[in-house]
Every structure is written in C-alpha cells, then in structure tokens.
C-alpha cells in the first residue's frame, strides 16, 4: 500500500466500431509515494491519456485507477472533482491560467473551489508565490508575465491545496531553455519536499534526472 498510483489493466478507447481509437491498452502501473517518475514516448501514443486517467480528468473504458488507496472509477463526478481539487495538482504545457485573473487570484481560485475561506486564500497565495520566486508578481495578469513566470504561477496554483501528487503535462514544452531549467529545478525541489511527481515530457534532461521512466508506445506501457 505504499503506492501513490496503481492502475490495473487500464484502457481508454475513443469512439466505437470501425472508427474506435485505442488510446491506451491494458496499462498496469505502480508508482510509489514520494517518487519522481517520467512518462516518455512519441507524440500521440497515449502519454497524456494515461496522465488524464490517473488524474481523474477522464474515465477509463476498462480497468481501474487507485490514487492513494482510493479507487477512482467508483467515484461519482462530484467526489472525483473533490479529489482532483485536494489530492492532485495539474500543470499544463500551455499554463492554463485564467487570463482575467491576477497571479494571486488564479491561485486563490483553486483554494476557493476546495472551500478555503476567502480570508486565508490571499495569505497562502502570497506564500506560494514566494515559494516559486514570484512574490512581486502577485497582482500581474497572465498577459503581463513571461512563459516561465506563467508556468511558475501554474505550479503555485497546483500546490494551492497542498496535494500529494503533482501531474505536470509537458511543463517545459513551451519554454525557452533558461525558463525550462528553472521549472525543472522547481519540480525537483517539490519532490525533495515529499511530493509525488509524475511528469509527461519529451525533455531528455528531465527524463535523465527521474527516478523512474515509463515509456508509452502505441497505447501500451513498454518495459
């Protein structure tokens, strides 16, 4: 029971009949708590599908996912949403910040959805921005931030409700090499502080520094 993530025979098929696309076929995984794992593989071979299933953003066609001992497929959409909000932190390639909100408000929104009272939100948002080195950008909107800064805000937002599991999907795919190094360092720092990190990446540098590498090819997990 020391696994953060366990999947059994996990499959995801889009469409049906002749047009069915098998994005993932029978994936069996066990990722220990506190580990730093990279999912690598060619584009369109099912890496992101795996990450979405593990993160409870999508539901499998067959098979099961356990996160910290909780079986996701048995949860209704509301319970699944609660779990996403409290146990999982997503980071996306295109940052996915809400562009009408400031950096601080983006982080506060994640806390609001988890039911954190408004008064505590600002304080914690400030701490998190400090942690990612952007304390002075609290009032900036995404449009006023560089790509690297936006991704730091996105990571701070992913940490808003202190989740155990971080799921960055190509977090450096849209950044220059300087910003990329900063983000990689930040992810490693979070790992050292006890977070379980499962990152989908094409980036060799990240992959080389990972404790474990999982390769996804043609919807299957390669040895």
């Amino acid at each position, binding site marked *: 029971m020391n696994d953060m993530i366990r999947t059994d025979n996990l499959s995801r098929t889009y469409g049906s009949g002749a047009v069915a696309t098998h994005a993932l076929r029978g994936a069996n995984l066990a990722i220990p708590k506190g580990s730093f794992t990279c999912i690598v593989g060619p584009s369109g071979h099912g890496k992101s599908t795996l990450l979405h299933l593990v993160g409870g*953003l999508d539901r499998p066609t067959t098979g099961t996912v356990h996160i910290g001992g909780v079986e996701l497929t048995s949860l209704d*959409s*509301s319970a699944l*949403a609660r779990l*996403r909000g409290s146990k999982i932190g997503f980071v996306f390639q295109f940052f*996915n910040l809400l562009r009408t*909100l400031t950096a601080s408000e983006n982080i506060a929104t994640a806390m609001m959805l*988890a039911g954190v009272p*408004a008064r505590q939100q600002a304080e914690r948002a400030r701490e998190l921005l400090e942690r990612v080195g952007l304390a002075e950008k609290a009032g900036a909107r995404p449009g006023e931030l560089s790509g690297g800064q936006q991704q730091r805000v996105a990571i701070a*937002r992913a940490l808003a409700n202190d989740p155990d599991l971080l799921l960055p999907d190509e977090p450096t795919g849209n950044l220059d090499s300087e910003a990329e190094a900063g983000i990689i360092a930040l992810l490693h720092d979070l790992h050292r502080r006890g977070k379980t990190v499962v990152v989908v990446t094409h980036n060799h540098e990240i992959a080389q520094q990972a404790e474990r590498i999982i390769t996804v090819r043609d919807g299957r997990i390669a040895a």
Partner: protein
Amino acid sequence: MTLTRLVLKNLTCRRGRFIFTLLGITIGIASVVSFLSLGGSLKSEIRRESAALGANLVVTPKGSCAYEQVSILTGEQLPTTITADEVARVQEIDGLTALPFLAERTAIRNRPVGVMGILPAETLRFKGWQVTRGDYFPDTEAAGAVLGAIVADQFDLAPGGEVTIRGERLPILGVLKETGGKDDLTIFVALTTAQRLYNQGDRVSYLAVRVADIDQVDAYAEKIKEAVSLGVVSDKQMLKSVLSIVGTVNITLQLIAAVAVLAAAFGIINTMLTATYERKREIGILLALGARRRTIFTLFLLESAIYGVLGGLAGAVTGLLFSTLAAPHITQNAFTAFVSGSGAVGPASVGVILGAVVFSAVIAMLAGVYPAWRAARLAPVEAISYE
C-alpha cells in the same frame, strides 16, 4: 476569491459584450415598465374622469362611436357638433339637467392645452369646483378665463395676467382648486366666448345630463332619443366602451413589451451559449482545479442573473423616466391626455423597480439555465484540451 467575484471579473473583462447584452435586457424591461405604467395610469385615469364628469348620461353628436366617447373624457375636439336647437329640445325634457360643453384646443408656448366652453354658474354647481385664487366668472357672458390648477402652475399664470386664445387676449379671472382630473389641464371660458372664438355659432360638442331619478336612466335615454336625433350613452356604457379600447391598447402594448423581453432573453441565451464555447478551456481549467459540475452550473447561472438584476434596475429606471418625462411631450391624443394628468412618481415606483428587477432576474436565469447546463456537462478532458 469567491464565485461572485469570479463572475464579475469575467463580465468586466468582456466589456463590449457585457454592455450590449445588458442593453438588450434593459430595453426589454424598460418597455415593460413604461408600457405598464402608461397603461395602468390610463385605466385609473379614465375611471376618475368618468366620475369627475358627474353625468349619468352623455348626449353626443349622431353616429358618435367609442372614439368620441374617449374624446369627451379627454377633452378632445369632436369632429361634429350639436346645434342650439337640439340642446334646447333636450333641456325641455322634465326631470333632467343638461349642460352643454364646447371642447376646443389652443396652444400656450407651443404646448397643446384644452379649452372648454361652459355655462359658468351651472357648471360650477354641477362639478362642485372650488376657486383657490382670484374669482370665478361673475356672469354668463363674462369675458375671461378660469384655469385648471396644473395649467396655471405649468405656464406660471395667475389671476391678473392674461392668456391668449385664437389671437384674443383674455384676462385670467381665477384658478380652480386641483381636482386630480383633466379639468386641471383645461382652460375654461364662457360658452359664448368659446363659440365666438372658434366660430362655432351656437353649437356645442356634447351635453352632460344628470337625471333626477337614477333608476330611470334608461327611460330618460329613450326620451332624449325621441326628442332629438343624437347619440345617448350612459356613463357606465361610456366607461365600459372606453375601457375596452384601453384594454385593447394595453394588451397591444403588453405584447410589444413581451416581444422585447423575449428578444432580450434570447440575447442572454445567445451570449451565454457563446460563452460556453469560448470559455470551454476555462471551464476545463476549473474542472481540473476541482470544480464540481454544480459549481460550473452556478457560475454560468450567476452570470445570467447578474445580467438580469442589472438590466432590471437599468430598465426600470429608464422605463419610469420615459413614462414620466417623455410621455407628456408626445403629441397630445386620447392616450397621452390621460397620462399627462398623472405624472406621479411616488412610493409606487419603488415597487415597480423591485418588481422589474425580480422579473428580469427570473427571466435572465431561465434564459441562463440551458447554457449553464451545457457548460456543466462538459467532460473535463474535452474542455481542457480545447484549443
């Protein structure tokens, strides 16, 4: 951060769309409010005028229809007249008092004002008027004018001054106490003066008849019809036929208002549906951050409701402003003659504003249900992957 704050941020960051959608619902609610307040005051005003007329029967020119009946209540000119001979024959009938009136129009500073030719002493008794300033007509032939309270106020006229009618300057004799009816908006002159000024010879517009025995009203109506070839209607008939016209006008106005509100509601549906497409990714982000479907639904419904509340407020204020400020300036006719008599914006308008806001919010939320439902049923992974 709160849900409401998130919604307000969204609205204010899309100002153009926000303003135009808001304008739609504002116009819809404004038309409902102004039409309802115009139509409502119209009905109550007609009832009051009918009572103020103080007549059991009204004798009108032959062939007079509902339009003339409205005109009598509003003090409009009638297209045809009654001759002195006919007046005399009605007055000869036992057991009734028949008073002739000649309804004409003039203008003061380019604003239309009713002029009524009356038999001074008889009309004073008949109507139970009181004079607040100056004096009343000293005799039947007296040259001069007695003014309704609002006319005196509106044009700053007082006894000792003069008023010009058809190029002739008449001394102002006195001002009547406010009656709350259209008499307040009328200039009264002696019947003979009015007939001379308007070249009517000895003709009059209509006769107001009061009968001795109210139970015999129908019998008197028959007697009058035997004596002269004129139209005779009882006050109740007149009220009924006028109210039926007003009712039709009201229904038409309400239909127009309903169409305006419906168009506004579709405006909201359209805006919010577009928003669910445009903001698909935003919905996906919120879902990934742990938003429940219910939260997404609330978020979108709240946005619609804000359109409704703000549009309702703006619409109610615009509608009330329009019905009180603009209505009296519209060319005088049977419709607005009533409206101009009751420009009261009192405590009642607080109720109108509240009602409009609630109505508008309910309509907006109903319009918002479908878009909100669509937004809430988006699959997280589909929404977050939307380019």
